[in-house]
């Protein structure tokens, strides 16, 4: 690095590995959340059944909760894909992932033998491997938070 050049300036002119990694993680998470969210939005009935199986929320608020959650998954995924409000979108995704980890952990501790409800038609049972998967997705957020270059972003901030 040229010592005369302030670090921030040099940073903004180079496409480093962090920028690439940030982009890949961003697009990857965007794809995952869109893939997971769109079928939930289109078929809320199935998502409602899957969410009810967790037995964590009262029936009175569960339907509203699932239609809202599904749309937030899609919205956050779409914003990440377009590169709009990247950090806020990453915050939303982080919040959802933490919620999923808590829900799956609680269900496992209660010994519920239920389907994850993560992706439509997955038929995947909840288990430790899903916690690992969520942890990987949380880790994918780190480069997104660190990256300041925001490649291929429409309106990063």
């Amino acid at each position, binding site marked *: 690095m040229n010592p005369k050049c302030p670090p921030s300036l040099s940073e903004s002119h180079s496409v480093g590995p962090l920028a690439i990694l940030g982009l890949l993680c961003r697009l990857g998470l965007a794809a995952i959340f869109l893939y997971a969210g769109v079928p939930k*939005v*289109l*078929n*809320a*009935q*199935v998502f*409602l*059944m899957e969410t*009810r*199986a967790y*037995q964590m929320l*009262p*029936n*009175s608020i*569960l*339907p*509203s909760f*699932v*239609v*809202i*959650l*599904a*749309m*937030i998954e*899609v*919205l*956050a995924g779409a*914003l990440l894909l377009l590169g709009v*409000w990247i*950090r*806020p*979108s990453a*915050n*939303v995704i982080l*919040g959802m992932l933490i919620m999923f980890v808590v829900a799956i952990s609680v269900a496992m501790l209660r010994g*519920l*033998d*239920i389907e994850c409800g993560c992706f439509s038609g997955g*038929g995947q*049972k909840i288990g430790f491997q899903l916690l690992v998967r969520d942890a990987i997705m949380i880790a994918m957020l780190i480069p997104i938070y660190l990256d*300041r270059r925001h490649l291929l972003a429409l309106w990063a*901030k």
Partner: protein
Amino acid sequence: MTDPVNTSMKTMIIVGAGAALGLLFNALAPGGIPLRSMILPTDTPPPPGIAVSDDYLSTEQVRAVSELLTSGIDPDEFEVRFVIMDVREPYEFEGGHIPGAINQPLTQFKSGRPKRLDSIPDDAIIFVYCSDPECGSSLIVAEQLRLYGYKAENVRVFVGGLPAWEQAGLNLAYGIDPELDYDDGIEAFNDDSMDDSAMPGGDTLIEGEEQ
């Protein structure tokens, strides 16, 4: 660089916009779900070991209908059609069920309205049960039945399920339901469930095989 206040405000805007869009889409889309719970008399099933409340069926009520259904009298002769619906998977049903029950697995509801419902009149009184008070499938199916037009007060959940039936010292019937339509969205799920020995009620089958 990044203003944290600004970021958290935008975060909340995303959540709020998602909530508004989600509710709006649900209200407008043909596949929207009713948001008001029209579903269950109480929010959650009682935990195991606790007496089942009046809102749910007692073992005695189910026994009366089971006897009626197995009495050999043509069901069309009654003014009201009674159905006991076992919503577990076919292999669980095979390993023991309430006599007179039909097998209508929860999984069939995932691909839409099961064809079997065509043969159950709209004003039928349907008792739904599954493997135990925590299995939840019976509550889900009850809700589905109500969505498909069965009267809310006619769809009743036997929360105690099979364990309550067995605890009362009542007999089980064995074998598959001959009228179950296997082509109607079961097989796709069946393989998964068969692999999972931890599935509630799954051990019934294993015991049956060993004997």
